[in-house]
């Protein structure tokens, strides 16, 4: 069934969009990532104009994250206090990121920088997570599943001032690291046009030492606000949010997120992490290949007045 999208001004298959939304929704619920880093390239591939794809996707992420976060709330998997602290950093970062984005666009190479950002961050995070979770799985195999290693570094992070209790996470740390993580992810989110979950999740696990069970819900919680903010900005400045596209994708997305959350609770934390790592590496590999292999058509067409 073909359907004409009023803002994107293209005609696409409605079932394709439902399926795409569902697939990304499952991943979103499972890993607590917004799914933006997967959805953007997929929407480009089916011929949605980039500006519309990025803006509409922010709107969809709000829906799937909200659906996911409700499920996590019921399982007490959201650290509200941590979420708010991350969010404060995140909104400030996003504000700066939008400025940086505008500056890069003026310089002309914004497309390349976004791609390089993707390859770099997806590559580093994917590789780190892959190695770490592989080690964790190996350890649990050799020593038996009963052994629980409480791995909490007492480094410089714990020497910082302004300590705060994060009861749900079981942490008593300074607010500076979460604020910094939020800020940094906010910048990247604005530049790369994603919710930032795939950076946020590992940062929360490895930098802040939060338990994996709380990480996903808390990440989703703050993603709702960051992407909601982005949706409003895109809708009022660029008029690029396509409601019809959004509705079709989010019907699939919210159902997928529910399914994903349930799959997520059945899997072990290490398994969850290694799956996410493989996915992140796969996307990274695809983007890197695009940069390295000679494209079939050297010329590309952009709309608008450029510069």
């Amino acid at each position, binding site marked *: 069934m073909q359907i004409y999208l009023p803002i994107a001004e293209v005609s696409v298959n409605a079932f394709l969009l439902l399926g795409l939304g569902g697939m990304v929704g499952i991943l979103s619920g499972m890993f607590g990532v917004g799914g933006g880093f997967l959805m953007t390239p997929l929407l480009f591939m089916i011929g949605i104009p980039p500006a519309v794809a990025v803006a509409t996707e922010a709107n969809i992420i709000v829906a799937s994250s909200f659906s996911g976060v409700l499920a996590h709330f019921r399982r007490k998997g959201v650290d509200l206090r941590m979420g708010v602290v991350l969010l404060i950093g995140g909104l400030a970062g996003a504000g700066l990121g939008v400025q940086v984005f505008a500056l890069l666009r003026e310089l*002309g190479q914004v497309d390349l920088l976004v791609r390089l950002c993707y390859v770099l961050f997806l590559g580093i995070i994917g590789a780190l997570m892959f190695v770490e979770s592989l080690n964790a799985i190996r350890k649990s195999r050799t020593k038996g599943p009963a052994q629980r290693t409480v791995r909490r570094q007492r480094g410089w992070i714990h020497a910082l001032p302004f300590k705060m209790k994060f009861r749900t996470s079981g942490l008593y740390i300074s607010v500076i690291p979460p604020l910094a993580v939020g800020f940094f992810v906010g910048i990247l989110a604005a530049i790369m046009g994603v919710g930032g979950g795939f950076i946020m999740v590992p940062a929360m696990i490895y930098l802040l030492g939060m338990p994996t069970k709380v990480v996903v819900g808390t990440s989703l919680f703050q993603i709702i606000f960051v992407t909601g903010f982005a*949706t409003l900005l895109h809708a009022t400045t660029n008029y690029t949010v396509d409601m019809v596209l959004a509705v079709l994708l989010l019907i699939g997305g919210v159902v997928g997120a529910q399914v994903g959350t349930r799959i997520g609770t059945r899997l072990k934390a290490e398994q969850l992490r290694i799956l996410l790592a493989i996915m992140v590496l796969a996307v990274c590999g695809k983007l890197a290949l695009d940069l390295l292999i000679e494209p079939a058509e050297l010329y*590309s*067409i952009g*709309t608008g007045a450029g510069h």
Partner: protein
Amino acid sequence: MIRALLLLLALALPAAAEEVVADLSQDRVSISTSFDGSEILVFGAIKRQAPIPLQPPLAVIVTIEGPDEPVVVRRKDRVAGIWVNVEGIEVERAPAFYAVASTRPLSEALSETEDLRWSISTRQKLRAVGAASEAANAPAFLDALIRVRQAEGIYARAEGTVQLRDDTLFSTKIALPSALTEGNYETRIFLTRGGEVIDSYATSIYVSKVGLERFIYTLAHDQALIYGVLSLFIAIVAGWLASAFFRYLLP
């Protein structure tokens, strides 16, 4: 006196002897939710008072042109091992859609000077005034623009698709793609002999969104904030509904 009059008539004849009478199967295209491209039938006849001249050869050219828009064409090159946009030109005016259909190859049906005068071929439709200063090989960029858009079905050059019967009746079908933008689509029909345009006819097709498409588009542009909030509201409600539904279904 009579001889002089005949001479005058003979001189005046080529300009007015043959006229195009044409019409379209539709002069409005409505983009509704289920819009998936459209096909326009262009048909007509050549009206004349005298017998059909045998030479020079007759040709009919039909063009449909979408609204103009500015575009940027960029070229990639390998820099330090990766493919990067190295240079680009700005094309001030390029039609959002352009199709040329003709009875015979355009190079035979139309001389270059007539093409310049009437801007019939796709290349003549592109206006890149500042391009020459931006890149050394601007024509390569314009050729690339045409090539890419032809591959996407936005520009079409259909030679030999106009059927001409007994040098009098003609018809052709031009497909409008599903990715159509709103606006007036100017339709022109040219009658040429030996590459010279002897008559032309112009009309336009009005393409517009209707119903829900119209409503959403207008809301998004005129009430952007309300539209944004509404989009968020739909997202939140959909997220909540899915959550509540699944909780009810699988407690």
